[in-house]
């Protein structure tokens, strides 16, 4: 395992919060404010990790288990992804399923810890989270499987590594576009960004993720924020991995370019959040079904062309 791999794998864990910073900056720029500094998320994390904690007396150890498990699962699933286009140390045939499985584990952990509080708000959040999760899972499978079918590679690293420029010239290119688009929407849903949910509101109305973590405080909340930023990063790097066409001689330059790409995704999210309004809760499932349709199209194309 070369140093490059180590560096880039590690970079994900270090740079993930920065992605939020980028997004917020973008939004601020659109709003004409100058907004919080780019590294604001790091401040937040630091502050939270430094705080004490308040626990509701209805809760049990399940509540305290949620954040660490969620963070751990998300982190490992990030390790499964190739970083900077380099095969990940955890890569193996079928790691797609481990990747998805770990994400599901993280979701499960956070959801039950939310339900442990017995608050109707967090129950509601949990209910919505699992609802969207249940629909997001097959969409994710579809878009990933279209990649697998095109590249005949059973591991994420393999699949992404073999998506190179020549493929883009062939007529299977739409498959990548579709997969990328689906993943982008999935990213918005999974990280409950606009147009699915507004991370800044604290009104009961529309919250999915935010409302689940109302009762978490101190380090626990820090864990949660960090793991959600990791999740964001993870989707972004996946999308970049698909769209990034070049293959460089030196791994370093390639990796750096990819990181830049990820930051661009962050900007894109910011743009979306500034120019779009939040859709009504009942329409989110349609959004996800839209993802599935894209996935199905991708798979169909892939089959048709093979």
């Amino acid at each position: 395992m070369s140093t490059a791999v180590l560096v880039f794998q590690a970079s994900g864990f270090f740079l993930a919060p920065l992605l939020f910073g980028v997004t917020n900056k973008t939004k601020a720029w659109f709003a004409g404010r100058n907004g919080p500094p780019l590294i604001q998320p790091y401040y937040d994390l630091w502050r939270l990790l430094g705080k004490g904690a308040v626990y509701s007396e209805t809760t049990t150890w399940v509540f305290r288990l949620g954040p660490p498990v969620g963070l751990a699962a998300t982190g490992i699933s990030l390790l499964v992804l190739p970083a900077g286009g380099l095969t990940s140390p955890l890569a193996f045939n079928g790691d797609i399923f481990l990747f998805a499985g770990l994400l599901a584990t993280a979701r499960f952990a956070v959801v039950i810890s939310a339900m442990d509080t017995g608050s109707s708000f967090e129950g509601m959040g949990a209910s919505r989270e699992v609802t969207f999760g249940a629909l997001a899972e097959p969409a994710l499978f579809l878009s990933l499987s279209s990649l697998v079918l095109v590249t005949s590679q059973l591991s994420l690293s393999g699949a992404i590594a073999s998506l190179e420029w020549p493929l883009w010239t062939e007529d299977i290119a739409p498959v990548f576009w579709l997969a990328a688009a689906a993943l982008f929407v999935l990213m918005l849903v999974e990280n409950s960004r606009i147009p699915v949910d507004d991370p800044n509101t604290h009104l009961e109305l529309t919250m999915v993720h935010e409302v689940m973590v109302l009762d978490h405080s101190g380090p626990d909340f820090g864990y949660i924020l960090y793991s959600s930023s990791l999740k964001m990063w993870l989707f972004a790097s996946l999308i970049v991995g698909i769209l990034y066409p070049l293959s460089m001689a030196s791994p370093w330059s390639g990796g750096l370019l990819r990181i830049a790409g990820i930051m661009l995704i962050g900007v894109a999210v910011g743009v979306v959040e500034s120019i779009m309004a939040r859709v009504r809760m009942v329409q989110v499932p349609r959004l996800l079904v839209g993802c599935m349709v894209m996935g199905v199209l991708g798979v169909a194309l892939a089959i048709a062309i093979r």
Partner: protein
Amino acid sequence: MNLLLLALGIPVLSGSIALFLYARPRAAIWSGISGAVAGCGIGIVYALQNVSGQAATDLRIPWQVPYGEFHISVDPLSAVFLLAIFGLGLLTAIYSGPYLLHYRKEKSLSASSFFFNLLLSSMALLVVSRNGILFLVAWEVMAIASFFLVTFEDEKPEVRNAGWTYLIMAHAGTAFLLAFFAILGREAGSLDFDNFSALQLAPATATGLFLLALTGFGAKAGFIPLHVWLPEAHPAAPSHVSAVMSGVMIKTGIYGILRALTFLGPPPAWWGILLILIGLVSGILGVLFALAQHDLKRLLAYHSVENIGIIALGMGVGVWGLSHGLSFVAIFGFSGAMLHVLNHAVFKGLLFLGAGSVLHSTGERNMDRLGGLMKPLPVTGATFLIAAAAISGLPPLNGFVSEFLIMYGSLKGALATEVPVSTALLGTFVGMGLIGGLAVACFAKAFGVVFLGSPRNGHAPKSHGEPAGFKLPMLALAAVCAFIGILPFVAIRLVLPAASQIAGEEGIRAATDMAAFSGTLGRISFGSSLAVLAAVCLVLLRKALLRGRIVSTGPTWGCGYERPTTRMQYSSSSFAQPLLAIFRILLRSRQALHPPVGYFPRSGGFRSETPDVFSARIYRPLQWWIERMSLKLRWLQHGRVHLYLLYIFVTLVVLLVWRLRF
């Protein structure tokens, strides 16, 4: 072989002793349990010796009845199921002690403990029998024993109805099996399994037999739409019985199908695709109906339907691979299916035991009145959580491993360049994605609503606590969940020989490749254990961070709402509502929504109930129609002797004219 005979005999023997201890419930129970434990213990040892399939020996004892012979033998396939039966049997037997003693005032327990042991022995006999008649006998004895176990509380009408439904479905299934074996017997000239596997069947015959087996065994396994008895019988039965029935008894149907596959020669591809379709329907509808239930045990019952669906998917992938000569795919499918059989036995058994302990301590099955049981029932809660995560197919637990095998197999199949891509295979793992997601939702609901938060009916449950007889089995099962999840490459050794046995000779070669493949499983276990490790570290880190800081407790933050009551918690209905709304069209659940009106609403409410579509739309009308028809003909017996004489006369004349034709 003698070990096996002991394992078969001891439970029945001790059960019969229990039968004679009619008047003394305690003695009856202990005699029954001790026999079951001893028998199962021996059985487990024997099964473990035989999973690799070296020491396969026959035992043949002549039997007077027509076509009958007492012929038993053990091959890897049998051994896998024996392992499940004896393993779960042992633990549930221990559990049954304190559970049944609860009832010793009302009723005699000897019958129950006799039939429980009889059920265990008959299941074991079923999977080792090598003669059609012997098989059918074991099959029906199993059905009868489980019927009497289900109707343990026969004073309740709903229990009686449940038992009746179960009996009817079981018998209907058996009718197909009678035809199945009769035709096989015609082809083979005897009802000995060895002759069956030697058969060279015509394609038409093979297809007919396959469909018969699929229906007959499917009724026991609970494929939709033959599943209607499960959601009735499992809630009605005592929990240790539900655990055995759902954990292993319905798997005898799976065993039957796998065994049948070894008779019917090389399968055409569409058998596999049919199995995959059945699997998808059962899996998705099963989990959706489960999500819609509010009765904890009913929910679990529907989840059995879902898991049977997953197993069917595995078998489908296997058959597909077999038919295309992709033995690698076949191995993945079959080993995944069989590992899932074991896994489901473990976590579904555990879940039902947990539900039993909830029932035992609160006397309540309706989740909308439960909540906050984590505090009074810590062990039950913890183990239930593990089982819930496992059944949702989450790493690092065992459910994930078997589902991984199946999905990976289907992906391999889809990538195989020799054959055109099969949409069924893509459907398999995309469908399994959906099933997994829904399962997460469903068990977040089941676990969260029952064990977390605070009791919904206001007052804390009057807990009878958890007897040691409950804790031990549940902890053991939870440990197995974790073990298989963390060390999958050990578990897969249990099922590989059996899988390769079904996949045929080249299957055995592929099995050796699989041994190499267990490297991949090693990666899984590496990733999983890494995750566990990371979680532990994070917990420790938090401990370290919080050392010396203020860690206070307060009420749950209600967004400024001052007087939250426990009735305000999300109920199981409201938790499931968004998903149910999406799949309304399939579920046809009845919903009663009373939204709060006005500025100071007095009350509001939401209720939803989801009866089984199939029993409501198919079975009940059919039954009604039969009764109607027979009643219409009742006037034939009108009581007038003159007309009776006329019947005779007319019959005579008709026969004379018809047969002597002039």
